């Protein structure tokens, strides 16, 4: 089996010009990541220090209130907090006391900065240090910013994971670290494939609990499972860990390339690699072929959302037969998505950042068969006759690795099939 991905003959997109426009950005802020992070880290509480808007965003982004008492909350700043800052630190202590007394199951507390807390320069790292001392050893207190002025959507997870890296214990052990919050089922599949190749120990960041034995050091090599982890990547390298740059594990091809990179690092021979991957690869190919039937030769347009856009465009164009018109990402980090850019054939407009009105104009004139966009744009575009895929589902659904490759194609093909299926005209 040929494990190395074939690169486009006309060249990849790594050095293509990037369209950068400045205007209204229609994106979530980094606080949104709390919705999935708090499910992943089961002994963690995320306390946003912010405004009513932050609290409202969290419950609106969660769609419904699925949890009777979730492990996240907002310390809402009030007039009195804005008047004097010394006050705000004391107030925060009070809120945290109240919270930890109530939730003795909490082992990690994240103080999460927001737009208002940053603008008034509320020093959360000082607060986190003070509280770590106060509550040691039962609770570890960390801080990161999920504010909209600093972060976009998935960058919140990046900021969170990056905040955890400096406090990880030192280890000299040779180990593989998988970085990125994945659904448990997906994570187990990845670990299982790697273990079958004889690679180990395999550890994951974030670990489900604070008391895991995760350490870090110069013998650690790490692979990212999500493309939005730029700051975490930098923090890990500062601790001496070594990054394995690879295409992201979406689709059969991406998963194989990602695994191949790790296998090479750990000296896995080709025969072992094929033995472990042959069956799931065949399954993935078959599933993608079925799910992507309705996607062949269709055009796709990406609005910036989760930073998954480039790897997904690579998957859709190479494995599902689609043509990309525009691939917009909130932020393009070539050190991380470079391998995916290499594989993405030239042609689509690459854009970074956004002026949403101008981008909508481009989308309307291109009239793509499928538009991948945020929740604020999806229904309005559907009403204009464009089939859309809400991007947020891509971070809330298991889509990585072989066994989910068909599901991933299915997420995109469903809106297209649905459009063909419905035989009902809108009422006038």
């Amino acid at each position, binding site marked *: 089996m040929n494990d190395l991905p074939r690169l486009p003959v006309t060249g990849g997109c790594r050095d293509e010009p990037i369209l950068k426009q400045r*205007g*209204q*950005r*229609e*994106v*979530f*802020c*980094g*606080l*949104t990541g709390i919705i999935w992070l708090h499910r992943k880290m089961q002994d963690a509480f995320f306390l946003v*220090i912010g*405004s*009513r*808007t932050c*609290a*409202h*965003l969290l*419950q*609106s*982004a969660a769609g*419904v*209130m699925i949890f*009777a*008492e*979730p492990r996240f*909350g*907002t*310390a*809402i*700043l*009030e*007039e009195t*907090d*804005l008047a004097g800052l010394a006050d705000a630190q004391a*107030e*925060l202590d*009070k*809120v945290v006391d*109240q*919270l930890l007394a109530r939730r003795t199951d909490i082992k990690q507390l994240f103080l999460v900065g927001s*737009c*208002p807390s*940053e*603008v*008034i320069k509320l020093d959360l790292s000082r607060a986190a240090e003070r509280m770590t001392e106060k509550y040691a050893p039962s609770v570890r207190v960390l801080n990161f910013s999920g*504010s*909209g*002025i*600093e972060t*976009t959507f998935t960058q919140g997870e990046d900021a969170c994971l990056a905040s955890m890296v400096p406090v990880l214990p030192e280890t000299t052990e040779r180990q593989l670290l998988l970085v990125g919050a994945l659904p448990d089922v997906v994570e187990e599949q990845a670990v299982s494939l790697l273990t079958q190749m004889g690679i180990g120990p395999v550890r994951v960041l974030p670990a489900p609990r604070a008391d895991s034995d995760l350490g870090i050091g110069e013998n650690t090599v790490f692979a990212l499972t999500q493309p939005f982890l730029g700051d975490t990547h930098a923090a890990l390298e500062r601790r001496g860990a070594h990054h394995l740059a690879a295409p992201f594990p979406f689709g059969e091809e991406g998963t194989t390339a990602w695994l191949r990179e790790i296998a090479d690092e750990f000296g896995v021979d080709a025969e072992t690699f094929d033995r472990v991957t042959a069956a799931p690869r065949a399954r993935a190919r078959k599933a993608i072929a079925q799910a992507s039937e309705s996607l062949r030769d269709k055009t796709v347009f990406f609005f910036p959302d989760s930073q998954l856009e480039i790897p997904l465009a690579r998957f859709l164009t190479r494995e599902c037969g689609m043509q990309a018109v525009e691939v917009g990402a909130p932020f393009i980090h070539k050190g991380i998505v470079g391998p995916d850019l290499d594989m993405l054939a030239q042609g689509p407009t690459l854009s970074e950042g956004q002026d949403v*009105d101008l981008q909508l104009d481009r989308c309307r004139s291109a009239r793509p068969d499928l538009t991948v966009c*945020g*929740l*604020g*744009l*999806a*229904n*309005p575009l*559907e*009403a204009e006759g464009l089939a859309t895929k809400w991007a947020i589902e891509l971070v809330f659904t298991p889509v990585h690795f072989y066994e989910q490759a068909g599901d991933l194609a299915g997420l995109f093909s469903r809106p297209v099939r649905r459009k063909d299926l419905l035989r009902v005209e809108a009422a006038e």
Partner: protein
Amino acid sequence: MKLTVWTYEGPPHVGAMRVATGMKGLHYVLHAPQGDTYADLLFTMIERRDHRPPVTYTTFQARDLGSDTANLFKTSLEEAYERFKPEALIVGASCTAELIQDDPGGMSETMNIPVPVIPLELPSYQRKENFGADETFFQIVRTLARPMERTRQITCNLIGPTALGFRHRDDITEVTALLSDMGISVNVVAPMTASPSDIRRIGAAHFNVLMYPETAESAARWMERELDQPWTKTVPIGVGATRDFVKEVAQITGVDPWLDESRLRLPWYSKSVDSTYLTGKRVFLFGDGTHVAAAARVARDEMGFEVVGLGCYNRETARQIRTLAKDYGVTALITDDYLEVERTIEALQPEMILGTQMERHIGKRLGIPCAVISAPVHVQDFPARYSPQMGIEGANVLFDTWVHPLVMGLEEHLLHMFRDDFEFHDAAGPSHHGGHAPKPEARGGPAPQAAPAPRDISRQKNEGSGVEVIWLDDAERELRKIPFFVRGKARRNTEAFASARGVAEISVDTLYEAKAHYAR
């Protein structure tokens, strides 16, 4: 600083967005950081709107803070005007922009935009969504409306409906029809459906129908003062209130009261024998003040429930709700703390909750049926079918909606008779609810020992001597035989009964003595 898990209301600028999105030809330029655009999805997803809300956000980032956020606002305002060509603009700041004090209102005055630009001052750290909607509508009316010649026929304005409102869409239709039956036509519906030019002719109506005081009372009071338009004080939710509303309109206008009741089914449905099982059902009400006040009257007078507690989350209506609670012999719960509402419901152990989507979750957790009567809204609160709360059809809808979550009359008896039957067991729940029935805890209801201190709310007494009571094994087994939907009440009543008599241990006899004592 206040710890908050869930919020009943968004920030005030979301209230302003509800006004802007309901209207036509108006555009909102909001000075706000990147991320605040999440609010668009409230309208496009929850309400399934097919257009983006007419809002331009400046979406400033950290790097702009050092340089020139004010200029960013000016550019955004100019570009928004050029692109959307609205008849009028509203401008304001979200919570973060309020802190950087760029003064959008002041800046817009210097810019020579050829249409009215209405500045909004919405204090984000003090007030909330309903205030934001009320204040925004008030400022729009104050800027655009002027006294003018009245229409020759008697007309009114319907004021209060906004985007993202609880059943506002259908209430407009229902109230318009009801008024039309009296020979009164509608001049302007606002904010929902109105354009700025419609607001300019709002003064032509003879009076205002204030549908939702939460979002339009300030405007109603201003129009009474400046345009000499009286406004209706009755919100026509429920049979009695709808009849009162018709009388009030007749009194304001001098036309004959007339209400077509040919489609009204609630009174008969409520009288028919199948509804006997509704008698004295203990209900707890929570929501916005207007809907709670209306629902309390329907619950007691038109459904025959017993109101065991009520409250509201918007403190603007606190006084009204406190007065109302007195009439009902209960204490009003005025709070926007979700956990406090949950604690209250746990302590009261009602048989049914009439609340918001938040209480629906509390009910789900506690195994108490819940019907939704008020915002905050959820995608389920925008049904495809016609489903008003107001007027005749509204009353019919209330009957259906409130009865639906309950176990029905004969089914309740069957559950009593065959309580050990493999199909009629606790976990099966109401048969018409498919897979969504509440799942009582494994051992059949909360363990009696873990019960919250009995807090008596029934009217006849409070003997409470505060003795800790325990359940003997056989009594506990007997308690578990009682169907889950009345078990909470049985447990509470028995404990209160025992505690009042200084009985420390509950036996099977105590259980049945208590049952006899509370029999009605």
